[in-house]
């Protein structure tokens, strides 16, 4: 009951955000967050370029698909979606923009994840930290001046959704292989009136070099390290 109530509240909140002219649009549906099945993502992760999407290839493939579709349409093929060549080009420009954005926001080569039973912090190189507080498995919603964030568990996946002005909608969906050595982050970038673009990034676990000292950050002395702490 509490969950239902929460989901309804959440949906209403997100809809309320969307009614403002300069805030993110309402998602098509609120995140469905069943009983959390918590995975421990903590550790250091490095991007696996071999397995991750290559944006150029993906765009070429999409462009070919759109061209094929235009050709089918020219032949009067019933399967073709009605689309003029101008529209193909215009749509493709939009897709390219979305792809560039998706590429930019997922270009962190290294992730450092700290997780406890209460929260998780995904520290991303050259980007801001994705953080989530787990409150009894309920999704956490943070509404900010510049955007809104919702995060929580979706079965074994950890989901972060960022809703920004002008209808920009970013969804990070994180999952881990059973042997806990591979991390998959699927990022979907969506914008009102444009086709979404999804980019898959894979990471492999690595252990940073063990250090013989322990450091603590202090304001006046910077990092203060002690040797032989470990």
């Amino acid at each position, binding site marked *: 009951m509490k969950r239902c109530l929460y989901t309804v509240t959440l949906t209403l909140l997100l809809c309320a955000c969307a009614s403002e002219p300069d805030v993110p649009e309402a998602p098509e549906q609120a995140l469905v967050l069943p009983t959390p099945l918590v995975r421990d993502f903590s550790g250091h992760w490095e991007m696996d370029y071999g397995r991750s999407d290559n944006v150029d290839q993906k765009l070429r493939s999409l462009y070919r698909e759109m061209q094929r579709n235009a050709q089918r349409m020219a032949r009067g093929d019933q399967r073709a979606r009605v689309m003029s060549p101008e529209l193909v080009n215009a749509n493709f420009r939009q897709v390219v*923009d979305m792809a560039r*954005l998706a590429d930019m926001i997922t270009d962190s080569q290294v992730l450092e994840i700290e997780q406890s039973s209460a929260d998780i912090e995904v520290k991303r190189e050259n980007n*801001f930290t994705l953080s989530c507080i787990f409150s009894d498995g309920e999704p956490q919603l943070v509404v*900010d001046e510049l955007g809104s964030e919702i995060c929580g568990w979706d079965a074994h996946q950890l989901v972060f959704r960022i809703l920004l002005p002008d209808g920009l909608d970013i969804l990070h969906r994180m999952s881990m292989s059973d042997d806990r050595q591979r991390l998959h982050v699927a990022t979907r970038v969506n914008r009102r009136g*444009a086709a979404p673009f999804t980019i898959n990034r894979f990471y492999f676990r690595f252990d940073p070099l063990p250090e013989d000292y322990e450091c603590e*950050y202090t*304001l*006046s002395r910077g990092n203060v390290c002690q040797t032989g702490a470990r």
Partner: protein
Amino acid sequence: MHRLLACWLILAATPGWAQENAGGDPLPRWQTLDQPQVVEAPELERVQLVVRDTPPPPQRALEVGLVVLDPGTGGDSLANRQQGIFEDVRSAESRYLPFALRRALVDSNQWGAVRVLPGSDPGYELLVSGKILVSNGAELSLELTVRDSLDEIWLRKTYSLVAEENAYLETERRLRRPFQDLYHEFANDLYRLKQQRDDAALQRIREVSELRYAADLLPDAFGLYLGRDDSGLVTVQRLPSRDDPMLARIRRVREQEYLFIDTTDEQYAELYTEMTPVYDLWRQYLREQLAFRDAWETRLAERDKPRRGSYEAMKQTYNNYKWEKIQREEMKTLAEGFDNEVAPTAMELEGTVVQLNGSLDQRYREWRDILRQIYQLETGP
């Protein structure tokens, strides 16, 4: 309350009062006791502390207690985080700032003992309590209330000050502490309020303070000496004899309590000394962050807006969000660095190490209970 207000109005209209306060410094500015008045000291104004050359005569040397401030954080951690309020830092500030005010009062040489108290003590001769409204390096805003042992409110006012641009420069800090004008303004206000009261009024405050302490310790014996008038102020119904043995015993107990408070006060002094350089850095960083943010927002406003929906527009939207988040993360790191440095300050008390954070108030209450028990043991059933 109306009577109080009327008193203030009469005082304000009295020529003698104005003359007493004519010394180049502005008169206290207030309008009503219920509505704290926001008075912003001009940015570049230097508030000179009114200092006595010699200590005040005993009859005018009221004792002042400054209660640890309400940090003003509320209970919503998420909301605090969004507003850039760091609870650990505010908690340290709530102990640091009363000590900064205490220093101004001590430096003025206008008072008896001035102590920072872990908890409220309504019977104190003059009690200062308050709340931190804003503390972000660029601005400090404190809501302060001063009441005497009669429960008469001397002052309820919001003190706000915007730090000068060079307030955190090393050379500037050697000359004067950041926000020193605010502490001085408060000390001067308090001094002027005392000047409005004659010796007899101050003597009454001291008598009531002693009797309230005694009544708190032994309500059956001393509660009858006190009453309240129509406006709710504490009044003395009658006085015990000067050589009342019970009162003499209570004075001894109170001295013991002062010893305890002085011990804790030393801990606040230690915290103050240790925290000052770190706290200055913290406030300096905060101020820089705010300045950076203002500059960033100005640049954003001036920049040509790219076509809506274009890559440039989406990138700008994302980057605005990203820099906002990164800035907050930096603040969090700084706050952790602050806490790492300040939190280990511990005090050695009665052979037990007690962290200043949290437990001192409880210790104070326990101590008062012990004193009460000692007293009862001394006096017998």
